[in-house]
């Protein structure tokens, strides 16, 4: 029995198809959504969602953080932003990383909440670059 996976960004639904397994970048480590998985809600870090069918990768998507709602035969990924890995624009991501690093330099180091947000954004962009350059 396959899993119905949906990857949804705020603008639109990117993927809605049946797969045998989907590996999601959870905040505390990767997690595979397979049929009959116990219902779980997951916070995602920036990373790559990999879709498997019969042990072969059929598609990979980069998500810049978000949430996932996994039930027995369904997996809904709410991504802050999402792109197919082959469409990642490394130049844009590198420029963004540059800008974020400068923000980091200037940021008030006592403002922990702000630093946390910045750090997450930097990690997310870094993951995007890694995903883009390894594909």
């Amino acid at each position, binding site marked *: 029995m396959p899993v119905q996976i*949906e990857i*949804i*960004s*705020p*603008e*639109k*639904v990117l993927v809605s198809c049946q797969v045998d397994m989907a590996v999601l970048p*959870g*905040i*505390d480590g990767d*997690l595979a959504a397979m049929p009959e998985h*116990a*219902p*779980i*809600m*997951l*916070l995602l870090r920036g990373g790559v969602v990999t879709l498997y069918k019969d042990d072969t990768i059929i598609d990979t998507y980069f998500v810049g953080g978000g*949430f996932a*709602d996994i039930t027995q035969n369904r997996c*809904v990924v*709410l991504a*802050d*932003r999402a792109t197919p890995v082959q469409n990642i624009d490394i130049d844009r991501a590198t420029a963004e990383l540059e800008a974020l690093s400068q923000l980091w330099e200037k940021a008030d180091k006592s403002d922990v909440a702000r630093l946390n947000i910045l750090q997450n954004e930097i990690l997310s962009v870094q993951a995007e670059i890694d995903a883009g350059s390894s594909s």
Partner: protein
Amino acid sequence: MASLKELRARIGSVKSTRKITSAMKMVAAAKLRRAQASAEAARPYAQAMQRMIGELAVSVAGEVTLPPLLAGTGQDRVHLLVPLTSDRGLCGGFNANIHKLTKRMISRLQSEGKVVRLLPVGRRAFDFFMRHHADLIVDKLIGFSGKEIPFSIASSLGEKINTLFESREIDVCTLVFNRFHNAMMQKPLCQQLVPVVIETGKGTVPADNVAAYDFEPDETTLLSSLLPRNLQVQIYAALLETAAGENGARMTAMDNATRNAGRSIDRLTQVYNRTRQANITKELIEIISGAQAV
């Protein structure tokens, strides 16, 4: 009675007005289709988010330290109203309806002794409230409608509201916007954003299913990152509805204007022809009576 020359000029000007309004109608119709498509494309995300928050809220219910975005500040004193309008006019009662509803809410809240703050979105709302309630405006957001609306606008607005809320400057935040039903009808309504109103009793989650959920990392962490996100998503949905509604309203208004112009041209043409005929008759009478007198 107006002279023939004046009538001719008048007919010409109404004709060019009709050309403009019918062109505007076409443009609005084309934009409407795009705006409607993006509003529909954004709906699944908002729905899925609503469902997740519902499930989470049920499972954290009864805990002492709920995030303020869900539980509120415990006060109900300062209300932030966010009226959403277009940047440009010529779209019938679309913006006026929002202004009216917002004004009603302001006077109601003020009569209850609440403090009202305004954050108008769209140039129309900003101009209107600058004239009537300039002292209440805390911030504004204008000059983006007409183009494709990126999510970043909604997220920055959401962050702004969140900051105001966290610094305890506001207790309640309400959006006032037009819900898009179809091109003919947009319904002004207000939706409370903060604290979040959880829709319960929808039957989407059976009660015994909820307990089975696992959460990673944990409920509170998830909820505290979901709620600000939800705020942005709700704002984004409202912005898209406004964009679609604006174009729908403009299309209808311009359709009416085109039809009125057509009717006006018919009437003027009739007057023109009658006047012309009357002039001819008058001249003939003059000639004939002149000839008879000889």
